[in-house]
């Protein structure tokens, strides 16, 4: 069991680096049986440990206008449900890319994406602010994304080692 947990951990680290790594390559790298790798992945998919395989995109390089805002939202929790219900009402909107419950001066951090400033502003004034338990919002537009999920967008470190060295 412990061994399986360790294997899962290592498989996750490899997949996090490259979700397209084949089970065959993972088996070689980890010195494990390919069958065990497949089992580990299947179990983690079923348990929703692995939620989805996706792609990290640098949208700045795509000819496609879009703006992102990080919105600090203060809310009154609902009796019996706390923040869950209100968080759901917000995250169900497709233009909402992520929602975090935060400690500190505000409650929810909401990442919203739109084609332009007006679209995001409209979302805040027409959808987010009018929700009963929302007390206040503070909208911060992002100007540039440098790093996401541990991945640096403009990697400038090259391999400048000597070709042959002792």
């Amino acid at each position, binding site marked *: 069991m412990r061994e399986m947990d360790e294997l899962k951990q290592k498989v996750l680290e490899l997949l996090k680096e490259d979700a397209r790594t084949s089970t065959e390559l993972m088996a070689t*790298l980890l010195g494990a049986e390919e069958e065990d790798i497949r089992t580990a992945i299947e179990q983690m998919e079923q348990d929703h440990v692995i939620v989805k395989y996706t792609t990290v995109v640098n949208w700045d390089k795509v000819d496609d206008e879009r703006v992102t805002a990080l919105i600090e939202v203060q809310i009154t929790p609902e009796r019996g449900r706390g923040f869950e219900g209100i968080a759901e009402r917000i995250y169900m909107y497709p233009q909402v890319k992520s929602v975090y419950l935060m400690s500190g001066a505000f409650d929810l951090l909401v990442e919203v994406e739109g084609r332009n400033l007006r679209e995001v502003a409209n979302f805040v004034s027409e959808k987010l602010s009018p929700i009963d338990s929302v007390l206040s919002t503070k909208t911060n537009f992002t100007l540039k994304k440098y790093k996401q999920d541990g991945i640096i967008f403009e990697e400038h470190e090259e391999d400048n*080692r*000597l070709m*042959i*060295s*002792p």
Partner: protein
Amino acid sequence: MITNKSQHSGDAEKSMKSYLAPLVQQIQPSGIRKFFDLAAGSKDIISLGVGEPDFKTPWHVREACVYSLERGFTGYTSNAGMPELREGIAQYLHSRFAVDYNPANEIIATVGGSEAIDLALRALISPGDEILIPEPCYISYSPITAIGGGVPVGIETFGENQFKLDAADLEAKITPRSKILILCYPSNPTGAIMSREDWEPIARVVEKHDLIVISDEIYAELTYGSNHVSFPSLPGMKDRTILVSGFSKAFAMTGWRMGYACGHPDLIAAMLKIHQYTVMCAPSMGQVAALEALSNGMEEKDRMVESYNQRRRLIIKGLRDAGLECHEPQGAFYAFPSIRATGLTSDEFAQRLLFEYKVAAVPGSVFGLGGEGYLRCSYATSVTQLNEAIERIGAFVRKLEQERRG
């Protein structure tokens, strides 16, 4: 008049050479140098010839150095190195390898492990002393020995024995002039390691023949499956061993040139004497970085070791699938497959691999006795590059097979 080299004045060059010390003139250029020149002229090469990590120095180490420069920490340090650094090295060696040294008089920070080896040899050699060197090995030991007036005596190690040093082979080379044994495990180029059981008979020979040991443990952190056994941790060996190590391989800090030597106060004092007259002290900014690596770098180091281990499995499997016999290297970041079955010498194999298949690797013959018939392949390069290199090596081996049949 001294003529500019670019004017191709062969006579002038020759005449200047006559001023050189005979000891230095006799030293042959390294076989690695030749491959460096060959590879440098070619394009689209995948290199398995690199003897250093493919990681950059962890950011916290670089940042600590930058911060120290901003604060103006740019002067000399004490000759032996910053006391905090020596203290850090002592604690590290104690906790990782169970060897204890007094930071006050048993540790000296050096300009890379290389300087430590040079200091140790210069402090110990009298003209004509024989220096025992298990081979294949790192290319510097013999030349440094020779410059110091010593006589290098190679001891062959064998693939059939995972390139471990055999006590009987060692003893067979001992004469009344034998003085020093240079050890380098985990080994560059073979990846061999020595377990406690492997070491014990060696320690008995060392004791019996009253040898001094220079133990180059620069790859100590890079072992896979078992912890490195430091030679001075063996009973009775500490006083007669100079432990040499450094930050290059474990913490991906090759360019910083930060190493150290540990040993008996009498030996360290003699080495310190040479060190203070030649380099004064190791670079202060490098010392700051080294201390940061020891203080906060273990997690990142472990991550790098795990990554080497994964790639080690990949290259061994790949080389074997390609049809080359390959023992399992347990340390460092080199695979050392045998290419004997191809019928080529290691030099021919490496040259044709470079020119015909654009993969650079180092022929085993440059590493001394026992290296002929093998190829050093560094796996400190990306998985993508390794896979491509393995494919090309496989294609080359198949071509050689066809040539032999045809």
